[in-house]
């Protein structure tokens, strides 16, 4: 089930809110959330649920062993636990890739069973959540959860289990046992949820249609796409991927607030970043935070000299790329960012501040733009074809009628999507809220805006979802 579907918004979510609010005790609320989450996850198939249950069982068992066992065995328990869940992740996510590469190198045939391996949705997200939990127990930062059902609720909470944010156990431990909702939090949650839904259903899906018109064509036709069309598709995809992914986090955070859960922010308008380092402080923050806390720092971070730091950064960014998908383009994508991050850190250093802000912003946007082209094409041949086509090496010429019509038909959409990728809307709402406190007309305007915008956005989303068959969230594949 995806958030941007009629069945989720108008059936599942409504029932969930109704039941959650009707439950009196926190125990009943948790039981309801667990049941709803398991139904939500099982929507993709009961087999996937079994994989998640096994993962949770492993982490629940080992976390208790780590906490209660002798000091000498703790590290071993941690290693075994992490190795087991990574093995499961690796089996489902990377087996095909492994055999593909073995086949390329040796000519060996891929075993038949490999083609039948399906990727459980959200496995990359909940695996990392569980690893962070066990690691935190090992470090003594959280207590091991004795109740399996509570740990299961943490891992499978439908708000975030399939596409993030990657929530730490410590973030929501308190909410699991003592959450309560307030009119203010519910109101913010409603706004956040509807903004996210509209970002996905209206903007991201529409941008996807533009990108697909040039990128998702028959591979043999890629070379004949005009350069302007490819550039336009690149822009549309850049907007799509942000709006799509951040929308999911918005909806997760919004639904959490409506039920009393508080999740970390996952995005902070990454396209206004003024350096690549800044971009990654704003993009998928929960993932960056995970790699920082559970890979980079344990490897030594910047404490063991420049050479080691460079190595650590390389490992982190290669892994970041590999986490996104079992294909070489994702690894290239990660290493691509590593190169720019390393250049900023070691070559530019503090000199970066002397570069005019406009140039810095433009450079980041260009770097990020091309990163998404790399990200988009798992087939390296197609990737090169598109990159060549963008620079006039294709057979499609510069432009054609289709491109100009596409642009003309969607220019307002693209402008709105660009604005939605900046903090302008949030700042305007914040300004209105501040002015409203002074009373008078500003309060009236704010009141109307507050009451109307969620309903309007929900209605817009419903119209878009009704006839929209293109709505799988991109990050489900991770």
């Amino acid at each position: 089930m995806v958030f941007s579907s009629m069945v989720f918004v108008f059936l599942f979510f409504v029932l969930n809110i109704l039941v959650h609010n009707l439950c009196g005790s926190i125990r009943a609320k948790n039981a309801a959330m667990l049941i709803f989450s398991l139904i939500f996850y099982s929507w993709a198939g009961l087999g996937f649920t079994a994989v998640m249950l096994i993962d949770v069982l492993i982490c629940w068992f080992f976390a208790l062993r780590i906490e209660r066992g002798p000091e000498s065995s703790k590290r071993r328990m941690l290693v075994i636990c992490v190795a087991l869940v990574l093995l499961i992740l690796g089996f489902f996510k990377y087996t095909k890739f492994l055999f593909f590469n073995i086949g390329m190198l040796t000519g060996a045939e891929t075993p038949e069973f490999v083609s039948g391996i399906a990727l459980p949705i959200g496995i990359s997200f909940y695996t990392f959540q569980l690893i962070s939990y066990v690691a935190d127990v090992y470090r003594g930062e959280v207590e091991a959860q004795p109740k399996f059902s509570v740990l299961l609720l943490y891992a499978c909470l439908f708000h975030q289990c399939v596409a993030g944010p990657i929530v730490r156990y410590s973030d929501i431990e308190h909410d699991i046992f003592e959450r309560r909702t307030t009119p203010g939090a519910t109101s913010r949650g409603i706004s956040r949820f509807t903004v996210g839904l509209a970002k996905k259903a209206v903007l991201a899906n529409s941008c996807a249609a533009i990108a697909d018109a040039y990128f998702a064509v028959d591979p043999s036709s890629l070379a004949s796409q005009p350069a302007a069309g490819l550039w336009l598709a690149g822009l549309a995809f850049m907007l799509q991927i942000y709006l799509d992914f951040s929308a999911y986090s918005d909806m997760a955070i919004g639904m959490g607030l409506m039920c009393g859960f508080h999740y970390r922010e996952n995005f902070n308008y990454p396209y206004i970043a003024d350096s690549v380092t800044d971009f990654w402080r704003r993009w998928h923050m929960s993932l960056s935070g995970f790699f920082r806390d559970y890979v980079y720092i344990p490897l030594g971070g910047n404490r063991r000299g420049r050479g080691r730091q460079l190595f650590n950064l390389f490992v982190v960014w290669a892994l970041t790329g590999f986490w996104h998908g079992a294909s070489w383009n994702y690894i290239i994508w990660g290493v691509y960012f590593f190169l720019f991050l390393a250049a900023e850190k070691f070559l530019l250093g503090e000199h970066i501040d002397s570069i005019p802000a406009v140039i810095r912003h433009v450079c980041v946007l260009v770097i990020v733009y091309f990163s998404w082209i790399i990200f988009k094409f798992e087939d390296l041949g197609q990737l090169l074809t598109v990159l060549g086509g963008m620079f006039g090496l294709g057979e499609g010429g510069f432009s054609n009628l289709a491109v100009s019509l596409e642009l003309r038909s969607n220019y307002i959409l693209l402008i709105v999507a660009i604005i939605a990728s900046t903090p302008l809307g949030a700042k305007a709402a914040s300004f209105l809220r501040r002015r409203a406190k002074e009373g008078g007309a500003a309060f009236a305007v704010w009141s109307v805006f507050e009451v109307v915008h969620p309903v309007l956005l929900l209605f817009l989303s419903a119209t878009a979802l009704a006839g929209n068959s293109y709505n799988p969230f991109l990050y489900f594949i991770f």
Partner: protein
Amino acid sequence: MVNKKMIKSVMKIKTACFYTFLLVFFFVGLLWFCRPSVSETEKRELTKFPEMTVSGVLDGSFWHGVDLWYSDTFPLREQLIECNGFIQSLYGDRSSQLIVDDGHHADDIPDIPTRPSGTDAPITDPGTDEPPMTDAPGTVEPPTTDAPGTDVPGTDTPGTDAPVTDAPVTDAPPDTGNNDPQEGEMKGNVYVSGDTGYRLYFFNRKNSEKFAEVINRAYDKYSGTCDIYCIIPPLNSILLNQATQDKLKISDQGRAIEYMYALMKEGVRTVDAYGSISAHKNEYIYFRTDHHWTALGAYYAYTAFAKSKGVTAHTLDMFERQEYPGFLGTGYSESQSQAMKNNPDTVIAYVPFGTNKMTMRQKDGKEVAWRVVNNVKNYHAGAKYACFAGGDQPYAYAHNPTITDGSACVLIKDSYGNAFVPFLIDHYEYVYWIDYRYYDGTLTALIKDKGIDDVIFCPNIYSTGVSSVINHLTALMP
């Protein structure tokens, strides 16, 4: 100044409005008896509730089906889609759009080969040295209008397909066949300019040559007993000026038809519908909001057919004229163009004067008495083309009691042919028409059983390039 209580009140109203809106949609979604099974706007059957199986539940396909069913049959879906069409019209200047469905690559049309004089052999591609596609050239026979075969009945009951003449003819819409995806017609590319959708044609050399082969096959099999006619109606993009056609890189339909005709054996009576229609480009020969020709366009093709057959075409003033305004066809359903919605088409029909009675066999096998030109005043805006010939039925026929020579023809058609049927009625005692997409009998049997004199192939030019169409036609002639 505004106090906290006032702000809290606004938040409570906001929350109440949001939940009310959600609940309204929730309850609407529960009205299973209001769920439609057919979308008139999209002209397709909506998703059915999936069958529950253990494997479906385990692998998630059942739940995916529920998801599709829920959104596809949501009671307010048609209205929501209409709203979405309006919202999308705000995305930019959509007075011109290009809706690309299946790529847009056109093969070059080879030079028209010249036919060696005095031979019935098909003309081979001048670029190859391949022998003729068949080895049975045969001789050209004169039209045999007075040799209907031995099974021709002398009553109103042609052959064994007894018409249900007692069945009441009602105004209720029949199963017009419009619910199924219309192979070879619906799929395609549309250029929308203002209130007109132009169906684009891209020549597919391989399939076009195969189509000519199919016609030659029919000629080889049946030329001893009947005449073979081929009419290829062009699409309405012939109305575009040359500069726009060049920009769209669409193929020259006149040349493509000429090429296909040139590959057909000399004995095949190729009908120059293109030339006849092209001479009337300033008239209402194509719908603006639909991919079909109008009855007037079909009439001009009929005049070319009459010329080819050597009979005098009836003039339009001999027919009773009926008008059905408010038609919004496939061009509208695909583009949701507001300009089209504001200026719908009018279906103008010409009632055959010999008889307007017909019998059709629906896809469920049921035979129904109907009208050749039916009253569609109360039909849905998207279904008014079903005015002609009972729509896309597998098999239908009409007996014209004013002609008693036993003459019979069969029209092998897609929905383009529907508007052509009324003009045939007054030239034969028996007119049969089969939709090659749905007919499960064979042409061989039909010719034998009904004593067919003329076999008339009438697929629109797009269909001649679709491999499934070739397969359907081939299957008619085992």
